[in-house]
């Protein structure tokens, strides 16, 4: 362990890598603070910077952007009630009322320190859990790997219970897109519609960038409620002084921080669930566990602590399945996975056994990021009005060009830029159809892993699908998947029945 840690320090503290990590923290915090730039988009926009890096430095850089962008999101959430990243949405519930009472500095202090604690806790969990999971994963066969990838999609679908049909369609569309090109077992051409360029399949990075960056800029083009420097000045952003709560206040939220660190990390580990789900889940859990639930939403530090601890705790969690199984824990992790695959890294359980420096470097990067970002975010909160003074008429097109470079440089192919443009338009159509872009991306990323493992398991178990899932791990995971898929339909019926019984009693 100590040797691994030293290896990680040696990688991150190389002058070039360390400078790029600091740059990533500043970039990530600014991107996160800007409404309309999600954490996934921030990681996607960081991709072109990694093309000249070695794979370990690339993951260090992208992890730093990811963690700091989640933290940056709290700035706009507290000051303007507009979450910089979707996972900061619950921060607005209590952060903004605090800002209105003139306690913006305190809310920011709680948000930043809790983000750091959540991030550090999850980094430690990642460091100690990933090798264990890797050891366990070595005994996994294709049926277990299929079950785990399937779990990612089923959990994502079940969590969006309001829209389960459309989320399922989106996920399956993603799986279908992943089948374009040659099939993974026998190389037979499928769904290319005669295009030679589609023979090698649909590249993930242009689609990811198109859906997350281009769609957002197109959406912002017609949006009238973009934040401006004037809004920031009116909110007194430049005069805000981040202050820390008293020791008594910290002690009052110690259990909130601990619970949300644990729950956020667990949610982050689940494939498909990410920082947004973690922060909403922890916020609602804390309202149920609190001695004064009625105060949530009125501007208490417990609410800010719950949301911000959880969303940063999910960052380390999301890296666990990526590093130990080669399966992304969320969309940002999917972008990182694409970046590693692009560099020829063989993801899977053997990665950490053959090249443990990926884990140690990611761990050290997360530790440094979670500490440094507190100070960077304090500075950025003060300079927020100046950052917003860059008009969107400049920022929007620059985002499109960064996205173009990111897509092109993947394979030095202009076809990928066209795919990015199509994916951007597809993202808009998805919004019209109320489909779920995150599910599409997860389907696309998991598609070939899912099919490849199912196909191998099918052959190994001589076409006996029942036998495939009779193995303990695969069977248990499939039961969890089925429960997750059925519960949104059955849950309300059960609740209604129990409710009636209670009323009768």
């Amino acid at each position, binding site marked *: 362990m100590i040797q691994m840690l030293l290896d990680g320090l040696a990688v991150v503290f190389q002058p070039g890598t360390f400078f790029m990590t600091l740059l990533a923290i500043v970039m990530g915090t600014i991107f996160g603070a800007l409404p309309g730039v999600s954490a996934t988009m921030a990681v996607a926009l960081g991709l*072109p*910077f990694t*093309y*000249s890096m070695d794979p370990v430095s690339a993951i260090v850089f992208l992890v730093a952007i990811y963690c700091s962008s989640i933290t940056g999101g709290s700035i706009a959430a507290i000051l303007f009630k507009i979450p910089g990243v979707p996972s900061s949405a619950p921060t607005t519930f209590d952060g903004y009322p605090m800002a209105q009472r003139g306690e913006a500095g305190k809310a920011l202090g709680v948000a930043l320190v809790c983000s750091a604690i959540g991030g550090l806790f999850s980094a430690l969990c990642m460091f100690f859990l990933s090798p264990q999971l890797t050891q366990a994963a070595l005994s996994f066969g294709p049926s277990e790997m299929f079950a785990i990838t399937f779990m990612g999609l089923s959990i994502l679908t079940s969590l969006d219970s309001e829209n389960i*049909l*459309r989320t*399922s*369609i989106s996920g*399956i*569309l993603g799986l*279908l897109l992943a*089948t374009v090109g040659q*099939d993974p*077992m*026998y190389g*037979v*051409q*499928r*769904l*290319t*519609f005669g295009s030679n360029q589609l023979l090698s399949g649909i590249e993930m990075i242009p689609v990811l960038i198109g859906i997350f960056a*281009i769609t957002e*800029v*197109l959406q912002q*083009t*017609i949006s009238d409620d973009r934040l401006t420097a004037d809004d920031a000045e009116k909110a007194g952003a430049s005069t805000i002084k981040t202050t820390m709560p008293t020791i008594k206040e910290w002690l009052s939220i110690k259990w909130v921080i601990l619970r949300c660190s644990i729950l956020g990390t667990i949610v982050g580990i689940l494939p498909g669930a990410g920082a947004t789900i973690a922060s909403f889940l922890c916020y609602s859990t804390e309202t149920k566990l609190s001695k004064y639930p009625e105060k949530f939403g009125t501007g208490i530090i417990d609410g800010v602590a719950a949301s911000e601890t959880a969303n940063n705790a999910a960052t380390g969690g999301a890296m666990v399945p990526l590093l130990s199984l080669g399966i992304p824990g969320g969309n940002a992790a999917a972008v990182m996975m694409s970046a590693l695959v692009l560099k020829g890294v063989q993801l899977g359980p053997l990665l950490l056994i053959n090249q443990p420096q990926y884990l140690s470097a990611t761990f050290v990067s997360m530790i440094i990021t979670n500490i440094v970002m507190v100070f960077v975010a304090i500075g950025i909160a003060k300079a927020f009005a100046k950052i917003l003074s860059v*008009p*969107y*008429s*400049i920022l*929007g*097109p*620059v985002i*499109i*060009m*960064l996205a*173009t*470079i990111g897509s*092109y*440089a993947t394979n*030095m192919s*202009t076809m990928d*830029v*066209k795919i*990015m*443009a199509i994916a*951007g*338009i597809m993202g*808009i*159509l998805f919004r*019209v*159809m*109320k489909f779920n872009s995150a599910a599409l991306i997860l389907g696309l990323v998991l598609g070939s892993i899912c*099919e490849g493992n*199912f*196909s191998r398991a*099918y*052959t190994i178990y*001589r*076409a006996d699908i029942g036998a495939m899932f009779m193995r303990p791990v695969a069977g248990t995971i499939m039961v969890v998947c089925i429960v997750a898929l059925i519960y949104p339909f059955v849950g309300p019926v059960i609740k209604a029945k129990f409710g009636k019984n209670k009323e009768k009693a």
Partner: protein
Amino acid sequence: MFELILNVLLFLFLVYAAIFNVIEAPVPDKVQRNPYALQPGTWPTVLIVMLLVMIAINIVKILKEKKGKEEFSFGAFVQGIPEFFKSKLFIGMLLVVIASIILEPLGFMVTCFFLLFTYAILLGDKNIIRNLIVSLAITFFLYLFFGVLLKVNLPRGTVTALRNFALWLESLLP
């Protein structure tokens, strides 16, 4: 109505794909004869069938939800088409598509300048001179940062004059 039309189009496209494009090359005999091999067409076919069922349900759901609503008529949809083509959203999409098409023949610098300049106008920047200067400055900055510093091989274009210009510019740099 647009939501319904998109769902119907997706349904029809999937039917077409299922009939003509699931398998586009002969499956090797060895695979066809192996009863324990998952045939290359099975997985995509299962996915398409699931999608067709779900989209059909979604179409029925939309029809039920929107039935009787004033804006949910084909006439209202047709009336809205000219508005859509004039909208910022459509022009934005068009600019992104044009930029992706001209990137190969005209190269990175022209494409970057074109997109920065036109998109800024679309986003309401009325100061043309400032826009020109900012677009040029950002184009050169991005070219220098990614093309020179990070050594990303940005496209120089296939049009001779533009390609020569890019090469000339690169020759000026150490």
